[in-house]
């Protein structure tokens, strides 16, 4: 499902959450990266049709999201996992999914029940399908969330911060699940966790202060940190040049990973960058651009 966004703006009182977003994407898995408060959730909500833009245009599958007909047409083919999704605690997993399925317009009871059973299997919740949701852990709730999003086999899947609050094992499991989803559908993954995008997406965009500042292949974002990613091992104070991406202490001192245009230390050695390094390098450039503007 193609998405075309032109000069999208959204204002909340005096705060401008989106400041002229332009974005084009088609099928496959697409990652939207950005710090908290960058405007990702606002953009996701507009794409899901639960928030109106202040100005600009959003076309999804040829449907104009500024019209009610357009929104409904998209919502019929949409799976949406909002950030901080809550569930009805007094319903079981099967009942909740059946409830959402009905609201999605899946009227064939047999087919709906069959799909719910399949999805519970996919997300690994078959054993607790008839247990009330109030007894579910955060990770299990998230999995119910992704199951409801997949109900009806949507052509567009919008998942907002899906791994927030999950433990490492749940996060890996969730990423693996996300990576298997695209097929012929478009999956839009919004996250501030760079690793989530690194593990699941080929294309990505980076949002800063309500604007898209990068769109392209994940490998291009990584490439941006080539030659500026360093490793420094020292028992002294941390490097003051560049931005420290990680710090791991061991017997020989602390091993710092630093993104910096110039070597952060005479003993620094260049290392191949990861997506996280690329993201940090890009944000440094964006910040430098903002400060010089």
């Amino acid at each position: 499902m193609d998405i075309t966004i032109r000069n999208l703006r959204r204002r909340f009182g005096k705060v401008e959450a989106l400041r002229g977003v332009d974005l084009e994407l088609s099928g496959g898995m697409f990652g939207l990266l950005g710090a908290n408060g960058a405007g990702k959730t606002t953009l996701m909500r507009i794409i899901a049709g639960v928030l109106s833009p202040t100005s600009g245009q959003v076309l999804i599958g040829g449907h104009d999201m500024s019209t009610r007909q357009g929104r409904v047409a998209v919502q019929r083919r949409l799976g949406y996992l909002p950030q901080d999704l809550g569930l009805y605690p007094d319903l079981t997993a099967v009942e909740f999914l059946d409830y959402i399925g009905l609201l999605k317009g899946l009227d064939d009871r047999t087919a709906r029940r069959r799909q719910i059973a399949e999805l519970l299997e996919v997300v690994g919740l078959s054993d607790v399908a008839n247990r009330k949701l109030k007894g579910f852990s955060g990770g299990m709730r998230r999995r119910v969330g992704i199951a409801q999003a997949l109900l009806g086999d949507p052509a567009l899947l919008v998942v907002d911060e899906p791994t927030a609050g999950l433990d490492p094992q749940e996060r890996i499991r969730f990423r693996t699940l996300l990576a298997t989803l695209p097929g012929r559908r478009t999956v839009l993954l919004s996250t501030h966790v760079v690793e989530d995008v690194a593990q699941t997406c080929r294309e990505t965009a980076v949002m800063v202060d309500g604007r898209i500042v990068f769109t392209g292949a994940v490998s291009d974002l990584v490439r941006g940190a080539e030659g500026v990613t360093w490793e420094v091992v020292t028992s002294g104070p941390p490097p003051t040049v560049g931005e420290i991406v990680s710090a791991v202490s061991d017997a020989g001192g602390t091993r710092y990973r630093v993104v910096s245009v110039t070597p952060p230390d005479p003993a620094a050695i260049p290392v191949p960058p990861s997506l996280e390094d690329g993201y940090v390098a890009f944000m440094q450039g964006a910040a430098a651009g903002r400060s010089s503007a």
Partner: protein
Amino acid sequence: MIRYEFLMQIRKRSLWISMGLLAVITVLGQGDAGPRYLPDDASARVVASSWAFLWSLLLPIVAGMVLADRLVRDDRLGVSRLLESLPTTATTRVMGRFLGALAATATPIFLATVIAGGAESISREDPAVLLWTPIAFGLVLLPGLVFVGAFAMVVPLLLTAPLFRVLFVGYWFWGNMLGPSYMPSLAGTLLTPVGDYTASWLLGERALYAGADGWLQLLRPEPNGVTAALSVALLLGVGLIPLLVGSRVLARRATA
């Protein structure tokens, strides 16, 4: 959808505990004028209607209380955004919730009516009391529950559930129990959700204040079959207004 709304509401312990407690208090505190003390030769229609009217005095307060959070709790639980992203209209969602939650909330009251009707049937050796029970429930209690339920679900969207609950209790005693001769009130009008007009018609005498002189005299005709039907129609009709308003409010919020 109605089925799941029903299930969510019927599984609330607070519904059963508060209804049960208030039902016991109502039975124990009914006094000499209560249906327990009706003469042995009272007709089945009068006995069943008296019990329905007794329940209608206080149990709808619990109904209003427990229904007050049904729409606003979606925000609290974090379900609103998901529901708004679905293709179902706000009107469908509001109506589905209303019907399911109201049916569940009315269930304990219906059971109380049936239990009382069954007990009276046995003690009076008159099975007709049990036959009149659902009719009395449908005419005396149900219209008021629809009226109360609609306002209870929607008004908290505009105020808050706790504030609504406080105001609602005040309204209930002012609009139903406070005699119109004491101060201007809606008690005894066609819009009295306690079921004064239908109960008066079924009992063959004034149940509480139906038709008594007072404020808004136009809404205080003599109680009879026609005015009882008019009261039912008004309660159901006016009950639709908050549901329509609630649908609009949710639809606006969905894309605000």
